[in-house]
């Protein structure tokens, strides 16, 4: 029987600990005694954190008094001591035991600053303020981007004159991570996109009897635009975010400060190798991606439209000009530069909190994809102007 009760109590202990403990310690009470000269209060029971509700109710309900007797307080902690300090006001404190004196005095000595209230806010003003802040932040971002581009360029020029400043091991290490290890996912993704474009092309062009031109559609779209954009977006999500998180956590743990105090330039040691690795990897991945997407288109042409591979390749060589290929490949290193520089800027903006690390990593990915698409538009205007 005892055991059963014990087990039940243990369960209760786990699920509703405070309730059981409350039952075993007496509730705090405050008796009011009218005496000559004014009201006297007499506190008793356990004035502890477990009875926070009761303590607060006592404070709120208590009238002003001339004296507060705490001789009946069985247990006291800082919660209770704070409640007594609040109740006391101008009253005289009596019945303080030797044991409780220290804590009561320590709490009474505190300045008891009131928590700051929340100022009422104007919604329109808030909206305008956040719009203004966003705009000025965008301006600051442009400056940061230019500054980082300058820093990395300087480090690059320095490295050209002092070849040992190229951290070859580091570049190769990053090239492996952002290039070689990315090949399978990039190839698979572009293969699927090439297949989807071809399928849509055949489905719609069939109505006009223009199936032959699907190959032109796939080839031009992939080589000029889609291939490099897909690879850039994947590089931003896969490698840019990793760069930001790495640089950001090194910033948080003062590793970058340590590097600087040793007289080393973080741009040369940390950022240049990463950016260079990306500038080499993205064009290579773009090439692999383009081949893979054309293969995807070819598989669909064969299985879905009955165009045999030799005919597909024949049509490809007619449709593809060197220009389309060049347009895509010229853009690739610039896209890589955008991703790498944005990742470095955002990484160095990380502050002490883990939250800022997450926020910066997100904004690194979002900003680099956005900038890459803007850059793609600028290139479209440029190539149209030069007739490519």
């Amino acid at each position, binding site marked *: 029987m005892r055991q059963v009760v014990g087990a039940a109590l243990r369960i209760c202990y786990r699920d509703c600990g405070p309730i059981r403990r409350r039952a075993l310690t007496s509730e705090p009470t405050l008796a009011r005694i009218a005496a000559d000269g004014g009201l006297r209060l007499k506190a008793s029971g356990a004035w502890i954190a477990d009875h926070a509700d009761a303590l607060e109710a006592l404070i709120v309900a208590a009238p002003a008094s001339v004296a507060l007797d705490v001789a009946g307080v069985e247990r006291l902690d800082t919660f209770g*001591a704070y409640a007594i300090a609040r109740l006391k006001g101008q009253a005289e404190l009596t019945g303080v035991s030797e044991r409780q004196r220290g804590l009561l005095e320590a709490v009474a000595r505190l300045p008891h600053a009131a928590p*700051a209230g929340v100022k009422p806010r104007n919604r329109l003003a808030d909206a305008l303020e956040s719009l203004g802040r966003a705009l000025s932040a965008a301006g600051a971002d442009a400056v940061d981007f230019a500054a980082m581009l300058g820093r990395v360029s300087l480090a690059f020029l320095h490295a050209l004159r002092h070849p040992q400043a190229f951290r070859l091991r580091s570049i190769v290490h990053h090239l492996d991570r952002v290039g070689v290890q990315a090949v399978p996912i990039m190839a698979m993704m572009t293969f699927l996109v090439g297949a989807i474009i071809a399928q849509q092309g055949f489905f719609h062009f069939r109505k006009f009897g223009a199936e032959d031109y699907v190959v032109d559609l796939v080839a031009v779209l992939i080589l000029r635009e889609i291939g490099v954009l897909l690879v850039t977006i994947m590089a931003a999500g896969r490698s840019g975010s990793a760069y930001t998180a790495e640089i950001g956590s090194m910033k948080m743990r003062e590793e970058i400060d340590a590097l600087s105090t040793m007289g080393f330039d973080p741009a040369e040691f940390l950022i240049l190798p990463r950016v260079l690795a990306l500038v080499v990897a993205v064009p290579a991945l773009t090439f692999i991606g383009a081949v893979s997407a054309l293969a995807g288109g070819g598989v669909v042409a064969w299985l879905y439209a009955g165009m045999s591979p030799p005919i597909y390749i024949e049509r490809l060589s007619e449709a593809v000009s060197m220009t389309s290929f060049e347009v895509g490949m010229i853009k690739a290193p610039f896209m890589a530069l955008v991703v790498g520089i944005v990742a470095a800027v955002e990484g160095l903006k990380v502050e002490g909190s883990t939250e800022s690390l997450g926020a910066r990593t997100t904004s690194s990915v979002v900003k680099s994809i956005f900038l890459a698409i803007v850059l793609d538009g600028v290139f479209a205007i440029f190539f149209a102007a030069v007739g490519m």
Partner: protein
Amino acid sequence: MTPLDESAIRIETLTVGFGAKIVIDDLSLDVRRNEILGLIGASGGGKSVLLRAVLGLLPARAGRIEILGHVRGPGSAREIGRRCGALFQQGALFSSLTVLENLEFPMREYLGGSDAFRREVAIAKLEMVGLSAEDARKFPAELSGGMVKRAALARALALDPEVLLLDEPTSGLDPIAAGDFDDLIRTLRRTLGLTVFMVTHDLDSLNSLCDRVAALYGGKIVAIGPLAEVRGVDHPWIRAYFRGARGRAALA
């Protein structure tokens, strides 16, 4: 309430290790109720491992740990968490919360009362450890090293625990702040009946604050007792610890 037991923390034949390495070797130790026990030991000698095992952060290979009558285990985590505060060496404040929110978080989860009342008490606790209401609004990243320690102590005290586990509480504090810290612990111990188990190398704290000192060497407690007794124990490491120039100067 748990039946009044002589010891607040009871460690029995505890063994903790990583892979083939045994760090804590068949160690038994009792921390009595209402006492302040200081743990000393060489760097890398397992002090932090012992403390982390007591906190339930490292699994025991063998043996058991009992805190306020609750055996360390999955079922007792909340009860022990409510009644046992911990101060980590680096503070371990939640970096995405302000100092005040760091205190309010455990109070909101465990205690009653309104938000406003808990906030007032939280500010009072921050003032107790020597921080201002101004500091309460700051994020941990904006605090100096000493302020982080104080804020972390305030958080350890947020629930008015019965047992306090401290990992090098006064390291990184200036002597005045360290002295204030010792005074505060002494006051709380007297009034709340607090039990304190602290890892420390601060010889002043060991001297003026700790009732007993335990020396950990090679995964075992090689000496335990009042400081004067432990100092006299004939063990090569203890001799080197207390009779080095710094030890002599601090205890002179």
